[in-house]
């Protein structure tokens, strides 16, 4: 009995390790395969045909990819700038001032995060079709995508900045007031400098979300008609055996870009911690 028990316990212990190892393999297996295949010499993306950099060469000469990349970067930069501004202001407002219907407004500010993305995407599609176009006529797809991205990013920036603001020792702002600073001076000289790391992480999050977004972009352009960001470009390549191999290269590079962004985020976080 005792031996059986001990045996069972040992089994649980080794299963714990085994599961953990398997999960990590599971997480990195497809990424590894993807990168490997991006160096394939085959004419087809899904077939291995020996090592080559041909896919990368083709990628860099592809006009459609370049255009999609440009669109992605423009939308991400613009939506990040706007969402960071709006989100930070909202966070400050929610945490530092009082207003009527505050609770309702708070719920409204959080909703874009919690409702399924597809619902928000559908709502934007209908809004553009039923309100924006009838009122303003033809609207450029880039603008509709931008509006969509800002809308979900605002909430994320707000959450990140607000969390830091809540942790911020209130007495720091009081000390500044006590030393004669006006509320505006307090904001400029104390609150904002202390919030900078949080605002930067919020912005980075917004940027990543925008680059990554599929649902809102897809619906905001009613199915990607003409205007393509990188994810839309990837989606539109009917995935069959004949996918051109430079898609592997593109996917690998997108992966690398994400990694670079995270590295940047971590670096900034490290720096923020050091200066505290």
């Amino acid at each position, binding site marked *: 009995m005792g031996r059986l028990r001990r045996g069972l316990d040992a089994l649980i212990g080794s299963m714990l390790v085994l599961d953990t190892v398997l999960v990590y393999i599971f*997480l990195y297996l497809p990424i590894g395969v993807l990168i490997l295949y991006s160096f394939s010499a085959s004419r087809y993306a899904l077939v291995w045909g020996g090592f080559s950099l041909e896919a990368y060469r083709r990628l860099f000469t592809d006009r459609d990819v370049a255009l999609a990349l440009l669109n992605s970067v423009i939308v991400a930069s613009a939506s990040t700038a706007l969402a960071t501004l709006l989100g930070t*202001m909202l966070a400050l407002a929610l945490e530092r001032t009082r207003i009527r219907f505050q609770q309702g407004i708070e719920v409204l500010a959080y909703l874009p995060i919690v409702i399924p993305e*597809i619902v928000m995407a559908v709502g934007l599609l209908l809004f553009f079709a039923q309100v924006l176009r009838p009122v303003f006529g033809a609207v450029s797809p880039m603008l509709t995508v931008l509006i969509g991205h800002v809308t979900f990013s605002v909430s994320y920036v707000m959450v990140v900045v607000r969390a830091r603001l809540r942790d911020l020792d209130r007495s720091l702002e009081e000390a500044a007031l006590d030393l004669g600073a006006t509320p505006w001076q307090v904001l400029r000289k104390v609150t904002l400098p202390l919030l900078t790391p949080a605002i930067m992480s919020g912005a980075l999050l917004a940027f990543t979300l925008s680059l990554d977004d599929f649902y809102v972009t897809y619906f905001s352009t009613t199915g990607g008609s003409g205007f393509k960001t990188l994810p839309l470009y990837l989606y539109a390549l009917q995935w069959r055996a004949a996918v051109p191999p430079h898609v592997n290269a593109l996917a690998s590079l997108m992966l690398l870009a994400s990694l670079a962004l995270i590295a940047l985020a971590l670096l900034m976080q490290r720096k923020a911690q050091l200066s505290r």
Partner: protein
Amino acid sequence: MNGRLLWWPGLLWLLLFFAIPVTIIALISLAHRAPDGVIRWGFTLENYLRLVEPLYWAGPFVNSLLLAVLTTGLCLVLGYPVAYSLARQPRAVKNLLLFLVILPFFTNFLVRIYAWFIVLRPEGWLSEALRALGVDLVFLGSPVGVLIGLVYGYLPFMILPLYASLERLDFSLVEAAHDLGATRWQSFWRVIFPLSRSGVIAGSVLVFIPVLGEFITPKLLGGGKVPMFGVLIEEKFLGRVPDWPLGAAMALALMGLVSLVLIRSFRYIKESRWVG
């Protein structure tokens, strides 16, 4: 501080591009379908009545729920041991391993699905290997492939809150349980698991909700042969036979379902300190 000025820009944005669109969904869900598939304004409940028609709805409804439950269950079973092992590592190792869990999740969603597409295709080495073992599994275009993609996409959402609650757990409690004669299994089932309840619930909700509204994974890995809510909603708006009012009713029903789950579990999500 002049509070009004901080509120208005963000609030206006959210009202215009979030609250109004969602309201429009609600209005359109009560309208008639025009011959072109778009809208004839009016007031009818027929779209909602069609939602509860068993034959129409049974397939995608059961499919979505089943896949969402299976995904959540698999994520929990796979993720718990990982979160537990992570929580017990020394600090430096802990952070590195946690980082490795989150890393793939920061890369583009479509890129990740595309990577699985390469791994899972019928001529791929995984299928070949399984066939050699006498298992003939079709991944692409089947629920199995979709399930793998979903688990992959949402595993971090499970591991992070689990980790957060397990990390705060005082492991001397486990030692105390051992000291009192409990086996590993007993100390897990009677001490650790109950204390990590908020993490389990938060993780489950964070996986369950987005999976319900998923559209890319079933579309790309399921090849349109695995109908889920999200796929159906997309078809009603951007498919060949559009039906906006029905699509709007579906989106709203999905939102209602999600709100129900969220309201029931809000306390635990907050407790796990993973959101907000």
